[in-house]
């Protein structure tokens, strides 16, 4: 362990919350015991981003991490989960970069139904409230993400059901 200067208290883990805010929105929040400029830096320097984006405790291993964090710049994160042989790639483009307060990027790895992610950093009394907001293009896109993101047997089941519903739903006649 690193020697800690002065008499800083051991940092407690702050809770993370997630919520489906609406048909098309997912929101996650977390407070960090640091000023916004520091938290922002950890999101925008690829060599720092790669250290936390694929947590070992979640069975993830980072393979490569590129992020050109400026408006129009692209990112590509490739990592692997212990349970799956194939690595997963997440990629897209930054569409807004406001130092220390706001990041917006697209998610283009899905089949056209990509969400737009907005992260805001709000500093208050030396702490930073981080809010991550995913906006999906439609209710169906978020439902599909939920269905395909499931790793359990039931998840696959519902993925199949959802696919059926989507394909068949389009052909339902409303006479």
């Amino acid at each position, binding site marked *: 362990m690193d020697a800690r200067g002065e008499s800083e208290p051991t940092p407690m883990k702050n809770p993370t919350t*997630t919520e489906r805010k609406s048909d098309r929105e997912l929101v996650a929040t977390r407070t960090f015991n640091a000023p916004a400029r520091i938290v922002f830096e*950890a999101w925008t320097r690829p060599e720092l981003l790669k250290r936390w984006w694929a947590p070992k405790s979640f069975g993830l291993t980072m393979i490569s991490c590129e992020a050109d964090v400026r408006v129009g710049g692209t990112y590509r994160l490739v990592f692997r989960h212990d349970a799956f042989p194939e690595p997963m790639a997440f990629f897209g483009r930054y569409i807004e970069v406001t130092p220390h307060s706001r990041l917006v990027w697209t998610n283009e790895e899905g089949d056209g139904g990509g969400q737009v992610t907005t992260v805001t950093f709000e500093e208050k009394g030396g702490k930073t409230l981080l809010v991550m907001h995913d906006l999906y293009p439609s209710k169906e896109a978020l439902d599909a993400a939920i269905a395909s993101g*499931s790793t359990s047997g039931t998840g696959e089941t519902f993925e199949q059901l959802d696919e059926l519903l989507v394909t068949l739903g389009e052909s339902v006649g409303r006479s």
Partner: protein
Amino acid sequence: MVQYSSAPLDASFAALSDATRRGVLEQLGRADASITDLAEKFHMTLTGMKKHVGVLEHAGLVTTEKVGRVRTCKLGLRRLEEETAWIERHRQLWASRFDELDKVVEELKRKEKVDGRKRRK
């Protein structure tokens, strides 16, 4: 063709084999509705719609609740449980990420402090 053997799935696929029932699920995905609403929407008798809803209910795709004289239908618990479980997994992933991010943030804070001290010398 893929073979599905489990009984709940059979019920699901049987339920989904009918265009009206697929339409009802699609409709309930947008908003809860009473059997009367659904019957009107699909130009059907109340009895006919009750039968369809019964099949969907049996498959766990729809739940119904009677309040007063109105029976309200909504998407089934299986769908909702699936969503809740997914959101919880999503939370766990981000909680793990943020715990790692804490370590990076603490390191940056210490560095800033040290650099600040050096600069003052």
